[in-house]
């Protein structure tokens, strides 16, 4: 029984690996935030050879999506995870943009280990089917769900508008964030974050990269609460603005969020234009007009 099971297992795995390698090498499907993070990270590690400008951050900056930048902002994680990934590679960077909103969240060691484990790294590099974006059940789910949606829609082409945020729910979510942002972080937590960030920044500078800090806009009620203020103060103390480049947080009142901290798709584009205007002053790329036309 065991021999037959193992034989059949090898046949099935081989067939799947070959079919992915031949038919769908570029297929990438992610169905949850962990998978999305891994797919993004693996895509960067295995294919993004020409990336010279990288954004690292949390879900807040995950929507900063433009061709000139590689975005290593991960949902549920922080800038430290992106920096740790870059540290493990010998990437030549021109500029690294570090989001400073979520710096009190330390690096997720499980995430890093999954990407940097030497055995898994090599295996996933060469066998595409082992990568998270190519899981058979994820493909099955996505394909059947999209098939069902098509059947439901028939031939009609419909454009779905982004779902409106329920005001009562928004208020609750915002109230939660206000509560979180109102508890001042301890000096020890702030110091630890700064020490860790300083080590990363030093390393990237030694590698010849320009470091730019940026703070994403959040709901105006959160902009000046103790967490935001303490982080800003510590950042300026550790990385003085006269020595480091900052893209300062724009007027929070000009942006709408879905839950107090995350910008909607439309608002993310709005911020991107602001972000790019400042980037173009600091670095070589410039596609503000292109973006503003989107």
């Amino acid at each position, binding site marked *: *029984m*065991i021999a*037959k*099971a*193992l*034989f*059949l*297992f090898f046949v*099935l*795995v081989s067939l*799947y690996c070959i079919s992915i390698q031949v038919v769908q090498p570029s297929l990438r499907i992610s*169905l*949850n*935030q*962990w*998978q999305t993070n*891994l797919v993004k990270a693996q895509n960067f590690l295995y294919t993004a050879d020409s990336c010279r400008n990288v954004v690292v951050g949390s879900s807040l900056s995950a929507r900063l999506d433009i061709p000139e930048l590689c975005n290593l902002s991960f949902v549920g994680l922080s800038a430290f995870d992106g920096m740790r990934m870059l540290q493990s590679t010998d990437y030549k960077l021109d500029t690294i943009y570090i989001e400073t909103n979520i710096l009190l969240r330390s690096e997720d060691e*499980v995430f890093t280990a*999954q990407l940097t*484990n030497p*055995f*898994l790294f090599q295996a996933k590099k060469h066998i595409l*089917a*082992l990568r998270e974006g*190519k*899981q*058979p*059940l*994820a493909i*099955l*789910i996505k394909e*059947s*769900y999209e098939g069902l949606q098509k059947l439901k829609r028939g031939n009609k082409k419909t454009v779905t508008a982004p*779902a409106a945020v*329920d005001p009562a*729910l928004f208020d*609750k*979510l915002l109230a*939660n964030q206000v509560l979180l942002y109102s508890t001042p972080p301890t000096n020890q937590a702030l110091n630890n974050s700064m020490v860790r960030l300083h080590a990363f920044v030093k390393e990237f500078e030694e590698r010849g990269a320009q470091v730019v800090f940026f703070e994403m806009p959040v709901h105006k009620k959160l902009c000046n609460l103790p967490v935001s203020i303490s982080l800003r103060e510590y950042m300026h103390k550790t990385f003085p603005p006269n020595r480091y480049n900052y893209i300062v947080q724009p007027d929070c009142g000009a942006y709408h969020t879905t*839950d107090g901290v995350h910008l909607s798709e439309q608002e993310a584009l709005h911020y991107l234009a602001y972000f790019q205007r400042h980037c173009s002053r600091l670095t070589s790329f410039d596609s503000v007009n292109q973006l503003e036309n989107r």
Partner: protein
Amino acid sequence: MLFTSFAFLVLFAITFSLYYLPIAVNYQVPILIISSLIFYAYNQPELLLLLLFSAFINSIASYLVVHSNLVHQKRIATVGVVVNLGLLAFFKYGQLIGSFFIRPATTESFLLSVPLPIGISFFTFEGISLLVDVYRGNVDERKHLVSPSVLDHCKRTLLFISFFPHLIAGPILKAHDFLPQIHVKTLGQINVQRCFRLLVTGYFLKMVVADNLKDFTFWIAYPYFQSYSSVNLLVMLFGYSCQIFADFAGYSLIAIGLASLFGYEFNPNFNFPYIATSFKDFWKRWHISLSTFLMEYLYIPLGGNRKGELRTYLNLLITMFLGGLWHGAAWSYAIWGLAHGLALAVERFLSPRFALPNRAMFRFASGALVFGFVSLAWLLFKLPNFSHVMGYFSSIAKNKTMAPDFLQIFQILLYSSPVVLYHAHYLFKYSQQRVQVVFPSYVYYAVMLFFIALNSGNSGDFIYFQF
């Protein structure tokens, strides 16, 4: 160390190879002990001392119980049990006790800084089992539990407590089940096919079902659940029920399979719990090693059902309340235990008075009721803050008009389906209807291996590690 980690694979391969080497036959017990200590120390090396201390105390106390006169036996056994409970109270419940009874900030912060040693609930209960078994046993039974040589007894006790397959998340072993099994093992004694089935099923349940469901049921957490529709909230709860089963039953199957590879047999820890048609039945099928432990070492000593109806209900409540607290130092666990105790007591009160006809429809309805209650109660595991649990229920009631996220529902149902099929397979196997098996069994194992290799979720801690 996780059973699903690369480090564990290496440790296992080395241990297994050395264990069955003909020249190492006399060192099988030390090989397992060393390997188990490495397994335990991998993440928290500093807490190895605690494990060794616990094993030492239990070895000495159990040895002294056998080799002292009747007057001292009870005293020594009691002191041993109290030391075990004291360790558990200090390391596991220190924060909870501190937050209630001790006010000075320094004491509180000291208690908050005490680390929770992984597996302490399991090895402490095993220590108690040894002392109670030795104390209660007759001369013949004691011979199997305590060696004449103190050194040999310490070695056997250390293996009993630290044997890695059960060390950090059970099943909870009883001394009278494990200690008589310690003798020289040979490769020929292993039922390789059984081990293969256990390990493949266990790893499939853990890595494919539980680890994938985890990323979809994550949104049960506060405050995220507030933004989901009622249907999604109910489906997530169903998914969490399947996840917690797949996680713990998967772990138990791996533990049983691994132990079997070293020649040790553990009793089953799960027996298709979600087909239970009564709460009593559920507790005979879920985490069997804990429920039998609580039955043998708590419920029966409290008087069980021998002291009248009211006392029986009280004993059930006390047993389940403490069983709930065993899971963690938070009142939510105590409430969870109390809810189950109450359900058991009500069922015991009602069943002789309102006997339901033994028809499939009624059995199905009872099963659905038990599953529904059990699933709602799991929420206390996921949301330790009781107000968040109430918030979840209120969101189920309020978010009816929200559009359901069908993709999420589809995913949860798909990843939960192996748990449903697993139970259905068992039901049909023992029902009168004959079910035609479409494929030979090796096909199912090959498919499970395929998914383990290509569709495993993000490897996370086993849920029961925290207990």
